[in-house]
Each structure stands twice: as structure tokens, then as C-alpha cells.
């Protein structure tokens, strides 16, 4: 996975253009892991007082 977007300037030199948009699904994935992880923890704990 590329973390960054890299382009070339008018002189042909590599320039940083920003973060790669391929990281967006990973951001959604991290959120899903946190949410599902908490739901499982909540089920196991079996209490109404979550984190």
C-alpha cells in the first residue's frame, strides 16, 4: 500500500502531493475494528456500563 501520492514537477523531480487515498478504506477498517471489538467486549462483560 502506498502511503503517499507522489508526482513530478516541471523539472521532472519527484514531489510529495499528499497522503494516498488508498488509506481511506484502512481508516474505515480501524473504525470497524474498534466498534466490533467494543461490541464483543460489551457482550462478554455483560454490563450496561461500557467504556
Amino acid at each position, binding site marked *: 500500500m502506498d502511503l503517499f501520492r507522489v508526482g513530478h514537477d516541471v523539472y521532472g523531480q519527484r514531489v510529495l502531493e499528499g*497522503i494516498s487515498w488508498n488509506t481511506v478504506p484502512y481508516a474505515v477498517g480501524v473504525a470497524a475494528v474498534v466498534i466490533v471489538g467494543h461490541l464483543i467486549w460489551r457482550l462478554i462483560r455483560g454490563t450496561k456500563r461500557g467504556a
Partner: protein
Amino acid sequence: MAEAAERVFAGSEAPPAVAGRVERHKGVDRLFHWLTAAAVLTLMTTGLLPALGILKFNWVVVHWSVGVFLVLLVLFHIVRSLFWQRLKCMFALSAAEIAGKKVTKYSVAQKLMHHAMTLMVLAAVITGCFMLMKMDTPLWKRDPYTLSQATWGVIYVIHGAAAVSAITLVFVHVYFAILPEKRMYLRAMIKGWLTREELAEHHTPPKKNG
């Protein structure tokens, strides 16, 4: 005396309008929260959807205008929290709180969420302010040559990282807000209050007034 302590603990020194309720968030703070939420969601929509190729529209004007609005909101919040609120309510963190033996106005999870959001929003607005130098607006003319290409690259990376991390933070924040056992905090952010029972059940009472 006990009621006064509860009010201070809950974040308000004003008497609650209805008996049995303790004010948690003042109207101005709730308005700030929802305006910030609207601004962040608009900025995510106008920034990420065109970049991902999901929606093509002229997003630039909306994005920078709402971005400037968010800067004003952040400045307002900084001034208000410095001079009208107790910073330690949000920033103090004791060993007892980490161990789960004590819950002050905000839980450890709520403080961590606030700090993560703060980091994300500050990274976005500070880099966004630099990026405004590349914009022609009614207030200023663009000047993209002040910074080097390499510096612009770093600014774009930080701005993008803030935008991408906002996705995770918003999902997690909304999830915790709608959990049944946490919904009282959502109500408090809409209507402003908790009941005394909720306060007693979920928070450690203060030993002294304040």
C-alpha cells in the same frame, strides 16, 4: 450544599431549570458542538468525496468557506475554554481515573476522544490556513510561492492524514454516542442535562464543593 457541588461537578454553576436535573452543557457549548460537527462533516464530504472520485462537483469554494468557519469555531472554543471553563475538567487525568475507580465530569474515554478530535481538527485547520494561501478569495489573492514545493507536500500530507483520521474518529464517536448506556450523554449534548440518578450512577461524587 450538595446540589451546588453537583452543579459545579457537572460543569454548570447555574441552577438547573427543572428539579432532578443537573446541567452538563450550556447552550453555547452545545451550539458550538453541533456547528463544529456540521462543519467537520461538510469538510469531509467536500474534501474526500471528490478526491475519491465518488462525487464530482465544484467543492473548492464550499470547502474553504466552511474551513474558515471552522477556524473561527476553534478560536471561539479556545478562548471560551481558557477563560470561561475549567480546563482541568478535560485535561486532568488521575491514576484513579485510569484505573476506573473514579469518573469526573468526563470519563477517560471521553477525554481521549476529545484529545484525538482536537489533534485532528488542529492539524486540519492549521494546514488548511496555509493552503488558503493558494486560493483566490474576496479577501486575499493567491500566493503559492511563499513555501517550497517540499513544504507544500508536507502540508498536504498532514491535511490529508487529518481528513482520513477524521473518518475513523467520526465513526467511533457516533457509535459511542448512540450506545443505549451512553445515550444520556447524547441527550445532554442536545438538551443540556443529566438526571441526578444518571450523575450518581456514572460519576464519582466530589468530596468537596467543586
